[in-house]
């Protein structure tokens, strides 16, 4: 007993963390374990009715669902589409939020109002935002094409074009998210000691040089967090696609979560949906590790 107490410390502490452990265990850890096991099993939905809480019914199929997913051309296309979305969405949102954060970090009259205005798109529902952009980018009567025609350019039928549909969805998602990430960057900017800028002033640094050598390096950790959050967002893009294009044209906006949704919630294929989710999960982990290594290398 004394050995256990020596190893574990005060046992009453465990009693206090037990409720949190219980909730996290049941509603977070257990579903994760359940879905991992499910990805290796052929589960008949109604079999779940007879199964107990800690029982996962179904025949074990090994890695079949993982192999099926990786051999499914639509899944591979969806992966490429998802990455394409991320390539547009992540840099634009990062750049936009840094620029806006720099703008609203100045001591100007009405700056709080401006911050609020920039944040508003984030609280607009995805459905409303998607519909707004569907109208804006309407090929026939949309505002964007009307403006382009004023300068003599005939705009494309944006959402019906397999080239332009995904960038439009990405731009809409950027617009919705920039305000939120602006706030994260703003908090990062406000934590940078002002004396560093004073030293830079003494050294005669220009505004760009101050940003290049002081601000941006000191926002490194914040940028890592922002990048990871953006990456997760980009790999989870679903509602926008569902509303704006339905995955088309010609599957050019079909993303992995879109396929997972159909498999799990429309065809009740729990195992294949779980396998697709974990392939996506592994990709997220790999990219995150690479990102972290790059940032660590840069920041030492």
């Amino acid at each position, binding site marked *: 007993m004394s050995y256990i107490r020596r190893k574990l410390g005060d*046992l*009453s502490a*465990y*009693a206090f963390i*037990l*409720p949190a452990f*219980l909730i996290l265990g*049941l509603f977070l850890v257990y579903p994760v374990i359940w879905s991992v096991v499910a990805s290796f099993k052929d589960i*008949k*939905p*109604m079999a*779940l*009715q*007879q*199964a*107990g*809480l800690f029982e996962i019914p179904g025949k074990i199929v090994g890695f079949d669902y993982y192999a099926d997913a990786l051999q499914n051309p*639509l899944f591979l296309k969806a992966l490429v589409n998802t990455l394409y979305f991320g390539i547009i969405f992540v840099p634009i949102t990062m750049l936009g939020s840094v620029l806006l954060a720099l703008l609203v970090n100045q001591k100007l009259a009405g700056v709080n109002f401006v911050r609020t205005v920039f944040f508003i798109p984030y609280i607009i529902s995805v459905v409303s935002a998607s519909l707004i952009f*569907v109208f804006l980018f*309407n*090929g*026939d*009567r949309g505002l964007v094409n009307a403006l382009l025609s004023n300068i003599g350019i005939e705009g494309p*039928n944006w*959402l*019906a074009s*397999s080239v332009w549909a995904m960038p439009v969805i990405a731009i809409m998602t950027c617009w919705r998210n920039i305000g939120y990430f602006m706030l994260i960057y703003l908090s990062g900017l406000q934590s940078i000691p002002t004396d560093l800028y004073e030293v830079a002033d003494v050294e005669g640094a220009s505004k760009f040089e101050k940003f290049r050598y002081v601000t941006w390096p000191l926002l490194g950790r914040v940028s890592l967090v922002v990048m990871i959050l953006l990456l997760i967002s980009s790999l989870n893009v679903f509602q926008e696609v569902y509303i704006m*294009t*339905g*995955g*088309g*044209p*010609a*599957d050019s906006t*079909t993303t992995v979560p879109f*396929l997972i949704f*159909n498999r*799990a*919630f*429309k*065809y*009740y294929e729990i195992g294949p949906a779980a396998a697709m989710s974990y392939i996506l999960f592994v990709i997220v982990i790999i990219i995150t590790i690479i990102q972290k290594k790059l940032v660590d290398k840069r920041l030492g």
Partner: protein
Amino acid sequence: MLKRTITIASLSALLITATAACGNNTDKENSGTAEGGKDKVTEINMQIAWASDSGRGVAIREILDEFQKQNPDIKVNMLGGVQYGSKLLTQILSGKAPEVLQVQYGDVKALAGEEAFIDLSGDFAPQKDNYAPEIWSLSENDGKLYGMPWIGHTIQLIYNKEMFEKAGIKEAPKTWDELYEDAKKLTIDTNGDGKPDQYGIGLSGKQGPDMTWMYGMFAQQAGAKLVEQDANGDYKVAINSPEGQKALEFYTKLMKDTSPPDSLNKDGAAIMADFRNKVVAMELQGPWGVSDAWKGDAGFEPAVAEVPAGPAGKATEVTAYLLSVPTGVKGDKLDAAKKLITYLTGKEAQEMIMKGEKGDDGKYYPFRIPIRKDMMDTDYFKEHPEFLTFQKGLSYPFTLVPIPQWQKVSDEVYQSALNQVVSGSISAADGLKMVEDKGNAMIKAE
């Protein structure tokens, strides 16, 4: 030390209790029946596909009130909110699903093989003759009846009479040739800027389900089928046929020449808005298309005609909401549920459906039609022949999801192929070949 031990023991007991509480409890029966001889009232729940406080919910509640008046021993609680896919499954798995569920036939078919619903054929099979065979088959799976067809829709041609008159068109088109000709006549430049701003017909080109039912109707009008059984009784994709190609070429041509330029990203709802806003003169819609023009005070009187006939005759998309009873309902509750379904599928309640939902202006607007085929002699249809046209569609139905596996073929191959064809990326022959090859592989893998 003692306090610590008690704390740990209490929390452990809590953990065990909570875990046990999450366990399966299907044996426990909740009869909901107040015992007491004459006053015995069986209480059941019915889930509808719309919000309970919506116009549709209120309309259905009125029908249920009438049922309760005639059956004082049964109380029906109406629950709103559409349940399909995982939500429907979770409800059924919980063992606490409402006793009567309004479910789309596609959702019933998807779960019927899993024995998620009670086979109703013992009680309702004699009613088969009240329905078109195609409608009845929507509720069957392997010879078992997993729901009774309740309400639904057919799609017909809704047109703007005023625009027809202005264009000198005296009656609605009856054939594909007439449809194309009329749609061309109605595609005009009204403001003189050199580009048409009024179009003949709204057609969907967006990758999604709406394009599949629109094209599907034309395909069946041409004599094509989505699937057919081979000599071994296995289903194969059949849409890649000369008839299917002809229909797809006609659909593409009609859309290109007579629909708004942004039709490639339009679904049924966007087309309905175009019709209401006088951008298109014709649309293919269900009864809600007429109600929408009425409600929106569009400033014109919509008229309804049967869909034009193709080389093989008429065909229209028909769908039905079924009334199903989830597995696990038994005893008095099952009897009450069956009694309710009997009432709701009877002529009296079916006619009440046509009263429609109350709009903001206090008027009533039909939202679905009764699905029985013997409703044409009722007063409502005599007074509103425009809705009778939808009822006629029940005699030439086209089914969007002929087999459960088709839903996946449609989502993952068919919709994309149709979109690529109508956008001009690939030919109709190549598009339908793609559907055949990939679709057959998917059906085989199921």
